């Protein structure tokens, strides 16, 4: 049975860049215990939407609600502290730091205390234990001392997730976590997402359709900034609009 606790809500979100409407009146809901996939062709406005939900820039019009609170005017860091975690399409790890330090620094956001200037950062039990937990959940527990920049591509994607988890978020916005991954790595990542689903609300932007149809509870399809359909996998598969606009292409 699915819970229906809505953690993140985007309501009638529009973003204009000059004359271009990148996202046009899109509403979206993320519930705890579900994976909500956002699919669409390149330039459909998926990343723009994710950026507005996470607070990278504000929507032109529309509202973002995080756990029932209107956070539209909140800057990104405040949303992050309130439980909104995101990963990026391109790797945005700290390549010169170790895997552990990448996770620890992310976890430190929850216990910043910059005035404790005399205390070593590693002495903070809160962030070191959160970092170890997150790395273990993402399957990186054996590489804590590796330099992040030296990891394989798939491991870097895992680290992205680990850094996200280290902040103990309720909502995860994952921008193409499977991009460029091999079959084994994809399999491992999907298992991880399955495991995370239980206690998180997950938004997944992804191009790998097999993966999306396998894991997503809800799928939203965007084309040219407009939401053309939203529903479960069967509904999307059989939707004529989606077939026409998206899945039909190239077949």
């Amino acid at each position, binding site marked *: 049975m699915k819970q229906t606790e809505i953690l993140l809500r985007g309501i009638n979100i529009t973003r204009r860049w000059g004359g271009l409407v990148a996202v046009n009146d899109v509403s979206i809901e993320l519930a705890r215990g579900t994976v909500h996939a956002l699919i669409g062709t390149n330039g459909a406005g998926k990343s723009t939407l994710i950026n507005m939900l*996470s607070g*990278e820039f504000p929507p032109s019009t529309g509202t973002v609600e995080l756990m029932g609170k209107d956070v539209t005017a909140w*800057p*990104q*860091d*405040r949303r*992050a*502290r309130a439980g909104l975690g*995101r990963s*990026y399409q391109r790797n*945005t*790890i*700290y*390549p*010169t*730091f170790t895997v552990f*330090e990448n996770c*620890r*620094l*992310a976890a*430190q*956001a*929850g*216990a*910043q*205390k*910059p*005035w*404790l*200037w*005399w*205390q*070593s*950062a*590693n002495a*903070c039990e809160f*962030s070191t234990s959160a970092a170890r937990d997150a790395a273990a959940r993402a399957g990186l527990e054996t590489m804590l001392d590796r330099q992040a920049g030296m990891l394989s591509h798939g491991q870097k994607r895992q680290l992205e997730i680990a*850094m996200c988890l280290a*902040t103990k978020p309720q909502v995860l916005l994952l921008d193409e976590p499977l991009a460029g991954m091999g079959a084994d790595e994809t399999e491992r990542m999907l298992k991880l997402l399955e495991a995370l689903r239980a206690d998180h609300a997950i938004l997944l932007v992804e191009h790998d359709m097999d993966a999306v149809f396998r894991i997503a509870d809800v799928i939203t399809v965007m084309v040219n900034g407009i939401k053309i359909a939203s529903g479960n996998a069967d509904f999307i598969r059989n939707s004529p609009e989606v077939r026409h606009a998206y899945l039909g292409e190239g077949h």
Partner: protein
Amino acid sequence: MNNNETSKLAFVAVFFVALASFPLFSGNFGIDLVSKIMINAIFALSLELIVGGAGLVCFGQAAFFGIGAYMAVLLSSDSGPASLLWLLPVAVLAAGLYALVVGALSLRTKGVYFIMVTLAFAQMAYFVVHDTPLGGGSDGIYLTIKPVLGSVLDLDSPVTMYFFTLACLVVVFGFLAVLLRSRFGRALAGIRVNEQRMRATGFSTYPYKLAAFTLSGAIAGLAGFLFAVKDGFVNPEMMSWHLSGAVLVMIILGGLGHLRGALIGAFVFALLQELFKSEAIFGEFAKHWHLGLGLIIIAAVALLPHGLVDLPAQLRARLAGGLTGDSGLGGAATKKG
């Protein structure tokens, strides 16, 4: 503690012990020179905090140095010595305050704009002291009576000044070493490497950068204060962009991202300067010491892009590389044969 950390610690310990024992062997000229270099090292450490620590290239550090120096002179009276106890904190605070204002405005910009805005603010301070009678104009002013700490410290004595400066250097170095290991320091490092990710993670990065910038300015003010007290004289050149540039060269020469780099850079820079200025060695050419110094610095940066701190590692790599290179050649030769 691993090998690397042990060798760093050993280097710093030897460095400071050498400085502490230096006056035993040196005459007044040496004491004066090394005092000056140690002040430059404090100045370089202040810049290292903001450039190496937070990745913000400030090209106006001399303003904070100058404010610390001018405060030392302007707030001292001609009738009796001021107490270090209040004069030093006030000078440091004044420099920090100006840094807070400059930082609050300039940290809204990034990259090359940040460099230019910090330069502009420094030039503003420069022209205020250069073109108004406030600080004696372009001639500068003298500090007639140096500050004291009761009867404990008389900074008029070069040796006392030397050890007071050394103590300040050790305290600043130790403070920054501890600070950069703390959560604040790690957050700064994160901002240097990837500020966007820091924000996405939940750090409000602006206050961190502003705090680092202010602290950096305050430490530069301490260096300026010491400089004014040592020389008993300040002039607007202490705020000029030449000095901001020189201190930037020091930390680049020494190696960005390492506090030791600032120490090494300050010393090597000053020693090279003395070398090329020396008429005994260069004769007529000593007049053109800027040229020699510049060429050496260009060569150093080209050959050691990570600075002088990287020299041992580079040498080791060269040595190892040379060996494997030989065997590679040998292999190719045998294949051919």
